[in-house]
């Protein structure tokens, strides 16, 4: 009822603004910026409903009340413009294409804003500034582009997940990526890639990036909502920041066809840190070990290849004064540099908009269908003593044959290790995911200032994954040796959104502009995974030949006693929210935005179903004050202040009610009926994590806007920290999601600077440079813990380091602080000495500084753009050096790290985690560089032509000895994530791509 009254009031208000008086006639012409007349543009008097459209020459004539002040002129695909007619009877209006003007329109969530009206910290990146080169997912478009946004590749496997953090690390649990919103549809954040468990005991494989089903070529702009005053409109899912992706839309006019094609070739960015055959030979002499088998080979090279990447993209778009459409098609094939790995994508999108009922009703739709296939190499993140493909190749004795003279694999290495080539050949893992993302929006202009909009979005993904280890494999120590193993798994992920919004935009008075948004949103998601595996196939073809078809195509011939089937259905999640935002603009000088969101979630306990997230932001544009207004040097100077609360709840399953589970495998038990046990205890007080943040910033622009940028300082505090806690004993050993008590919190404090400038700008030559950096420190505070850690994480894996951890969550320390014994050199026997048996807090895996540099050099039709990024002040734990390439392995007939030569370390030195393996993580990476030649219009058919060459991951400046300092192998402990641990991961590829783009 209250809502009805409010709306009625608004209605009356608008009616009063109309005045019924004498009429006069205004004429004019509407054109595009290049002077082309726009046909069918709509012209209305501000405050009135009726209007006219322009004729074939773009001219119009309209009768208006004598006291009418403004006309509103709109055209599909262009920015609506208002013109003053108080003292004019003939006007010429230029409408700017929306696409061309994207840089100015920022998507703020449930609405847009002009960039200069923003009060919060929002970074807006448009397609022209995106990273180029090999881009598997949209997050990679932004690496190094936005101050405060860190995108870290976790692994070099094509399509692998990234770690994305906005302004530091807010949580001590997983699932803390930012919220992604695509054309108004909030995504789930998970991927429907089925989980296999562990195939033949090799361990868990790294995750896939959940966004790879989007086509980077379809993205028009990305907005990063960094502070709470901006992100609070997303309430309980906004705490880790929000990344809003807006796809390209068609523009009015004849059909345009744009074609992009590229081919690239990839190789290793940096070689494996192991001895060459000749170095190995001399090391054997030094250590007096007899393992020289006579040959000289490079086993690591045997599992890598020069990989080809191909990308083909075609898009079609067009429209008229009533509507527009765009459709695009992508086919891409990215081979991995490790044998039998890669990513193939096929993708189609279709989007459009159309206006009905005198342009009052607008229907918008977006549809993406995609199918991708990952070929996954056996490169597990937590391999134990058996290792994975990378360790098998690194460790292989470089004097020993991989393939025997009869063509069979040498699987009887005296060291007992797996033959990497055999592992690569006998292992197959293919994951195929089909995703549909669709949304439809209906927007109705109830009054000139008031619009109602309804959005329904659905995101459905299904994955089918098939894996096998042929029985010809030996030495894995798992079920597959000699017998073979196959697994087939499927998964489904389905989420739906329904949003209603009501938007009012108008002037309360000449000086005060008002923008109000209110709405309701319902979001639900569900996930299931099912897998079936069997081992024990008794039909290996003798003589080492591969079978003509994979084992997983014939699972019935595996030993049926070894058939295992597992289903896992996550609790369904429902969210229901009410939100509102009011933005006030007083004479373009003083801005105020306030938002409020009420969120209810099924994830939380009965006592805490709803949470409330307020925020407020203000801006003072000092340069609009009279004392600065006409300053020629300082064009813009504005001061921003924001405060807000956001929540975080993703990544935790339902935790509120007591859950009884059936214990595995009891159904077959004679005599005992299926025992069940409590798997989760009721937690009725469970609630979201809350991040309260304060942001203060200065926007500036100098010298005719040639230098512009911002400086922001921020302080965030996470309270009610969600933690998968051990239950107070006695309990059934299960864990429980809990909010850490008052007094426990996480802080992230820091500042960001982003400056870009046109250093040179003349007719033939231009040089732009942009630099952004963030300094951030995070701390976990929980004084009740004293100096003992709350939890250990960063599990160290490999032979000899079972149940060792490198990181801790501890009071007064950064999240995931390294917690290790201190290495003090070697004793006279070459055995490592440590500072006692205790561990100390010895280093921070969180970078203090992240840096991004972009530069563009233009000379006539040539352009060179270079993007570099880096991180500084963090440490990396080299787990590979601890337990894979350690010196003792040379005595076992394995290859070791180059860095160990000349050390006094004994072969008997224990394999043990310590600060010895902690290395500086500083790096600066030349992420991509593109040289392009823009031929422009050619003849009467080719609208534009551009050819380019791009280098991706050209080089990295770092002292780190692993493949890449931009690394984070997942070494979580029971869901508490690790950071900055490197362990026999997929190496980084360097790629050179040649391409051509043209438009018809």
């Amino acid at each position, binding site marked *: 009822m209250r809502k009805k009254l409010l709306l009625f009031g608004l209605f009356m208000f608008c009616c009063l603004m109309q005045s019924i008086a004498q009429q006069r006639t205004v004429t004019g012409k509407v054109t595009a910026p290049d002077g082309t007349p726009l046909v069918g543009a709509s012209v209305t008097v501000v405050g009135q409903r009726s209007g006219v459209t322009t004729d074939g020459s773009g001219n119009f004539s309209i009768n208006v009340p004598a006291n009418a002040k403004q006309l509103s002129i709109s055209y599909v695909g262009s920015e609506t413009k208002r013109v003053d007619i108080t003292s004019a009877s003939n006007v010429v209006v230029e409408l700017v294409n929306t696409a061309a003007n994207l840089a100015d329109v920022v998507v703020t969530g449930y609405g847009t804003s002009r960039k200069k009206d923003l009060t919060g910290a929002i970074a807006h990146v448009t397609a022209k500034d995106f990273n180029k080169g090999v881009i598997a997912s949209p997050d990679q478009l932004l690496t190094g582009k936005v101050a405060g946004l860190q995108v870290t590749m976790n692994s070099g496997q094509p399509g692998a997940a990234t770690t994305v953090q906005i302004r530091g690390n807010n949580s001590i649990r997983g699932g803390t990526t930012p919220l992604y919103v695509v054309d108004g549809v909030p995504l789930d954040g998970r991927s429907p890639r089925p989980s296999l468990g562990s195939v033949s005991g090799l361990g868990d494989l790294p995750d896939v990036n959940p966004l790879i089903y989007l086509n980077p070529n379809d993205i028009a702009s990305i907005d990063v909502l960094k502070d709470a005053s901006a992100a609070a409109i997303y309430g309980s899912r906004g705490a880790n920041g929000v990344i809003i992706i807006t796809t390209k839309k068609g523009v009015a006019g004849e059909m345009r066809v744009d074609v992009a094609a590229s081919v690239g070739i990839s190789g290793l960015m940096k070689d494996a840190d192991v001895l060459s055959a000749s170095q190995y030979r001399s090391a054997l002499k030094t250590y007096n070990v007899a393992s020289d088998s006579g040959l000289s080979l490079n086993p690591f090279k045997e599992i890598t290849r020069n990989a080809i990447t191909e990308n083909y993209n075609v898009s079609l778009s067009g429209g008229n004064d009533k509507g527009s459409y765009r459709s695009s098609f992508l086919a891409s094939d990215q081979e991995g540099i490790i044998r039998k790995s890669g990513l193939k994508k096929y993708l189609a999108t279709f989007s459009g908009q159309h206006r009905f009922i005198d342009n009052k009703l607008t229907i918008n739709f977006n549809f993406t269908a995609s199918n991708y296939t990952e070929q996954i190499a056996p490169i597990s993140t937590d391999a134990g003593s058996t290792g994975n493909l990378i360790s098998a190749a690194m460790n292989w004795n470089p004097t020993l044959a991989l393939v025997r003279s009869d063509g069979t694999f040498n699987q009887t290495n005296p060291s007992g290790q797996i033959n990497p080539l055999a592992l690569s050949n006998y292992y197959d893992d293919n994951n195929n995911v089909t995703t549909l993302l669709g949304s439809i929006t209906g927007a109705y202009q109830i009054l000139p200032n008031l619009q109602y909009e309804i959005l329904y979005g659905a995101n459905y993904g299904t994955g089918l994954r098939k894996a096998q280890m042929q029985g010809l494999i030996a030495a894995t120590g798992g079920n597959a040796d000699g017998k073979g193993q196959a697994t087939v798994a499927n998964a489904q992920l389905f989420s739906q959104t329904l949003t209603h919004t009501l938007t009012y935009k108008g002037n309360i008075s000449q000086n005060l502009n008002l923008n109000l948004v209110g709405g309701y949103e319902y979001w639900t998601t569900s996930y299931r995974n099912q897998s079936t595996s069997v081992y024990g196939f008794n039909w290996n073809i003798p003589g080492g030949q591969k079978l003509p078809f994979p084992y997983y195509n014939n699972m019935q011939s595996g030993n049926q006693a070894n058939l295992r089937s597992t289903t896992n259905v996550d*609790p369904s999640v429902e969210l229901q929210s009410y939100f509102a935002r009011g933005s006030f603009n007083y004479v373009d000088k003083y801005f105020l935005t306030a938002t409020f969101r009420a969120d209810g979630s099924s994830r939380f306990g009965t006592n805490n179903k709803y949470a409330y997230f307020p925020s407020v932001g203000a801006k003072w544009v000092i340069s609009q004050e009279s004392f600065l207004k006409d300053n020629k040097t300082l064009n813009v100077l504005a001061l921003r202040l924001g405060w807000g609360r956001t929540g975080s709840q993703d990544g935790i399953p339902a935790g509120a009610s007591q859950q009884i589970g059936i214990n595995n495998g009891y159904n077959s038990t004679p005599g005992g009926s299926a025992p069940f046990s409590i798997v989760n205890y009721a937690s009725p007080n469970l609630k979201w994590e809350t991040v309260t943040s304060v942001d203060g910033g200065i926007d500036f622009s100098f010298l005719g806007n040639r230098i512009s940028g911002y400086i922001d300082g921020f302080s965030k505090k996470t309270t009610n920290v969600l933690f998968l806690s051990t239950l107070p004993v006695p309990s059934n050993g299960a864990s429980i999601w809990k909010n850490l008590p008052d007094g426990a919190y996480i802080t992230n404090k820091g500042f960001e600077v982003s400056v870009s400038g046109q250093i040179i700008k003349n007719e033939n030559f231009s040089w732009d440079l942009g630099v952004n950096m963030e300094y951030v420190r995070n701390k976990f505070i929980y004084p009740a813990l004293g100096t003992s850690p709350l939890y250990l994480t960063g599990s160290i894996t490999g032979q000899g*380091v079972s149940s060792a951890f490198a990181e801790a969550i501890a009071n007064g320390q950064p999240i995931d602080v390294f917690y290790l*014994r201190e290495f003090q050199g070697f004793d006279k026997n070459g055995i490592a000495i440590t500072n006692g048996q205790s561990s100390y807090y010895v280093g921070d895996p969180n970078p203090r500084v992240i840096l991004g540099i972009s530069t563009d050099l233009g000379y006539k039709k040539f352009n060179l753009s270079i993007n570099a990024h880096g991180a500084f002040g963090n440490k990396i734990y080299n787990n590979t050096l601890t337990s894979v390439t350690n010196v003792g392995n040379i005595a076992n007939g394995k290859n070791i790290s180059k860095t160990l030569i000349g050390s006094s370390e004994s072969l008997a030195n224990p394999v043990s985690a310590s600060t010895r393996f902690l290395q500086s993580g500083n790096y600066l990476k030349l992420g991509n560089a593109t040289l392009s030649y823009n031929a422009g219009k050619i003849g009467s058919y080719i609208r534009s032509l551009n050819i380019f060459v791009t280098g991706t991951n050209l080089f990295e400046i770092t002292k780190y000895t692993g493949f890449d300092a931009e690394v984070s192998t997942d070494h979580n402990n029971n869901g508490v994530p690790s950071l900055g641990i490197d362990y026999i991961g997929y190496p980084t590829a360097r790629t050179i791509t040649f391409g051509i783009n043209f438009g018809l």
Partner: protein
Amino acid sequence: MKRIKIFLVPLLAASIFGCTKLNEKLNDQFVISPGGGNSNASGLLLNAYNDLNTPFTNQDQIFSLEENTSDECLVPTRGGDWDDNGVWRVLHAHAWDATHGQSASVFVNLGTIESDATTVLALNPTAEQAAEATFLRSMAQFYFLDLYGQVPYRTVANYNTVDAAPVMTPEEAIDTMVTNLTGIISTLDPANTPYRAGPDAARFLLMKVLLNKQAFLNRATPGADVSADMQQVISLGQAIINSGKYSLTSNYFDNFSPNNGGFASGYGTGTSKERIFCTSNNGTASNNGLNPAGVDARWMMTLHYNSWDAPGVYGGAGWNGFSTIADFYNAFDANDSRRGNVAYPGVTNVSGLKVGLLEGQQFNEAGNKIQDRKGNPLVFTPEVHLVEANKDSLEGAGIRIIKYAPDYSNYSGGVQRNQLIFFRYADVLLMVAEAQLRNNDAAGALATINILHAARGAAPLTTLTLVNPANLYDNNTLLAERQKEMYWESWRRQDLIRFGVFLKPWALKTADDPKYLLFPIPATQLVANPNLKQNPGY
């Protein structure tokens, strides 16, 4: 106004959607109200029995805490193997700290037994089921008290809460266990198979509680024994002895053989007549409703990689870790069959492996010398260090112990049929003798011990005292006798504390601190339960 109505329709739709109650939908689990009728006490009881497997069977659980902290077991770091961040070394050297993972894990696993047993009590059990659950609950409480000195518990009414659990002091815990165990002896069914608690299991545990009572109350200097308690230990022991169900097994190692329980049949079958309480194990997945225990942890952890040359067979290669120290090996009387290093059928003829304390060159089944991985002869040497620094002795250092003979005939899938014995009849005789000694009946104690000596082929003793603090291996002491009979059965630390000598130096342990009489409470538990207090010194 008409237009307003148009847009009110979808708003109305919104408010209909707005009625969702946001209840959890679990999909693959279900919810029952606490204490609800949908209970299955027998299933839950099996669950509680299965909880014993992890903490009592695995090599890094109670076995490690009770044995590696003592003078009869250590895990030397062998180059790339078994350092595991020093987790084993700190136990033997008495240098662990509050983050010790094994200590933390045992704490939680004991809580699982206690919790699941209490759940049975809450969900309408029969009198027999309640008595068995009470036994399991007491067993968990006993080990909490032994290892940590604090006993968290839940009342039956609060069996499923997640609130901080109340914590019993040692006095309260002893009173509670004595009351509960005394109460169930008459309810437990004497016909229960030895892997279901019978009255003798309850008697045995009660004997342990009473014997350790003074040490539990004051570990640094245990008080004088109470005569009535010792008398009760003797009469409980005699009830077990006089039941006639048990006898000392003539071949000591038959107690631990693959057929020690007759493949999970009842009493009187199998090669061991000493099983009072043990795991069920018949080598199959359907195992009387119980999970088979991973008893292979008892031999894999000590066997060398090449001890059994059977490539491609699961468990064919040992893990080459756990060893014992020379002082213990040397303490045995030459005729004492318990030292072993003797052939055992089904084992020696298959792999050459012997049972008992293994020293010297190892041979395969054909009598040929086994080599280590570097091609040197595999010789187990008495000399051993916490960190082996000589690369040539990395693999052979340390005498190994094979008490449970590997079940070579049933290796597939890693399910072996030996039953892991928690409570053994020989210990009843030792406890009775100890109570007699503590009650100043040296003659009675001597008589009891010599029954054991006769069965084991050792010379009869003529004098017997409790302990010789100057020589822990003094043959005329009960502590040394307990070691020779009960070695590697997870009792040594408890015994050393009860006899007041746990802080004495011994091989590869020099300094000590009274804080090591107790293990630390894990940090996550201190956070979760303010009723727990960290033990002094951590």
